[in-house]
């Protein structure tokens, strides 16, 4: 059968994000694949340079809908470090609670999406039903389901009342029971195992080489987790472990995510039960001194890096946002070759792509039908031979 080109996206009922795959397939096998991302460059970084620290935080929240707290915390954390502000422990704990609830709702959402992508709609409905409990907790605490607006430079904007704490604690047991069920389901349900096992495998070396972050890296056995490596907020105090798995495929990434749900629940429970008394914010100066910082944060999807440079005014000189999705794209492009067309959505979704932030790449080429993943040098050589005019001297 001759090769066919299947163009998926950017307007495609199967994809929820503006991304375009040009899949060159031989029957059901992917021979070659071209990824084309980001149809929506929004200029957030440029806009951030025009706003003072008060007004930039709502902007940072709107970099991404799911991980809105991640972006605003990463930014506020960096600015506080430049200003050498020590934010009060209560504020740290409240930020941690919101961050971990956000991780839970992101992972539950992901689990549902992954199940939907393999046509297992029942799990999709159930996880999204249970995600409502997390979202309700967040709504009770912050008033919103996604853009929480809890951060400000110097602390948090809203305190948690005892009623809110008790309501959140009351929701936890049911959630814990459900999450434990999902752990069993992910590990035992045949219909998921058959589609996830051995799909999109990355060895530990490959995962390191292609710079993967977050659950993608941890599924390949790399224990990089910013929460442990470079502790911030209340992660020093809370009891939790870095979750890793050695499978390295979509199955491994699913397992890492459900186990992280359990860890998140432990952190949330600890923070809710041990919430210290005290103020929730310290007054922040208007201007930040000259300085630069790489603020790292473990977002649900992986390591988020905000590089912030200040110049002594009330605005940043430059904020450079490196989203986890961008870091993971190289590995996705690499592990798609020689997989089935039917597995594209699963493999792409396995990194939990969030394209409201990112990019556009045209990376991959495999004319020969040999098994395995081509090396990067090979890739460069092929690219040159195909597009001689594009090569820079």
């Amino acid at each position, binding site marked *: 059968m001759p090769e066919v080109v299947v163009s998926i996206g950017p307007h495609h009922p199967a994809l929820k994000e503006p991304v375009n795959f040009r899949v060159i397939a031989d029957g059901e096998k992917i021979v070659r694949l071209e990824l084309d991302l980001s149809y929506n460059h929004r200029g957030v970084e440029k806009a951030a340079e025009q706003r003072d620290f*008060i007004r930039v935080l709502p902007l940072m929240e709107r970099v991404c809908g799911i991980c809105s707290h991640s972006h605003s915390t990463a930014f506020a954390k960096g600015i506080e470090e430049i200003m050498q502000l020590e934010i009060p422990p209560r504020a740290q704990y409240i930020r941690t609670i919101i961050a971990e609830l956000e991780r839970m709702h992101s992972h539950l959402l992901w689990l549902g999406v992954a199940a939907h992508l393999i046509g297992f709609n029942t799990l999709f409905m*159930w996880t999204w039903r249970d995600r409502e409990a997390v979202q309700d907790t967040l*709504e009770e*605490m*912050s008033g919103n389901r996604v853009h929480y*607006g809890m951060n400000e430079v110097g602390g948090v*904007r809203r305190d948690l009342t005892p009623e809110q704490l008790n309501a959140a604690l009351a929701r936890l047991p049911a959630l814990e029971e459900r999450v434990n*069920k999902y752990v069993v*389901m992910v590990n035992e349900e045949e219909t998921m195992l058959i589609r996830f096992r051995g799909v999109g495998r990355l060895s530990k070396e490959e995962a390191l080489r292609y710079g993967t972050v977050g659950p993608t890296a941890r599924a390949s056995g790399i224990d990089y987790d910013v929460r442990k490596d470079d502790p911030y907020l209340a992660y020093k105090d809370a009891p939790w472990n870095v979750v890793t798995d050695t499978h390295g495929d979509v199955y491994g990434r699913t397992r890492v995510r459900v186990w992280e749900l359990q860890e998140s629940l432990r952190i949330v429970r600890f923070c809710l039960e041990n919430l210290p008394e005290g103020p929730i914010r310290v007054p922040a100066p208007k201007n930040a001194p000259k300085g630069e910082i790489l603020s790292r944060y473990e977002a649900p999807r992986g390591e988020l890096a905000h590089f912030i440079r200040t110049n002594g005014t009330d605005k940043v000189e430059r904020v450079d946002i490196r989203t986890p999705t961008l870091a993971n794209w190289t590995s996705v492009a690499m592990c798609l070759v020689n997989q089935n067309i039917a597995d594209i959505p699963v493999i792409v979704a396995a990194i939990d792509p969030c394209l409201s932030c990112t990019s556009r790449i045209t990376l991959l080429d495999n004319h020969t039908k040999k098994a395995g993943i081509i090396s990067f040098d090979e890739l460069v050589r092929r690219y040159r031979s195909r597009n001689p005019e594009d090569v820079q001297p």
Partner: protein
Amino acid sequence: MSVLKEMFENLLSRPITILYPKEKVPIPGAFRGRVAIADEKCIGCSKCSLVCPAQAVTMIEGQREVEFKGKSLARKKRPQVKLYKCIRCGLCERHCPTGAITLKHELSSSGTDGEVVVT
């Protein structure tokens, strides 16, 4: 097959969906809804218009005598909020020195007229 067990349990129980027009979820206490301005408290300091990330707040003419900390002072301006530009971030409420601008618990319905204002 833990799925099967749960499936048939669900088949016998009620669906979890909230049937919207008949049932409604309570609005949480922390909810940020429609913005409201108490004109008698506003001293016209324009702080709200400075901190608004969406630039929904503009200062318009509005001379009035207001009580502030026991003193009477004459303000020149008052804020005006473009309702459908507002992103309900609550920064104006947070930075208002007198508590004149607040976010209410009521929902603000959607609309197509971008020029609806709250004063």
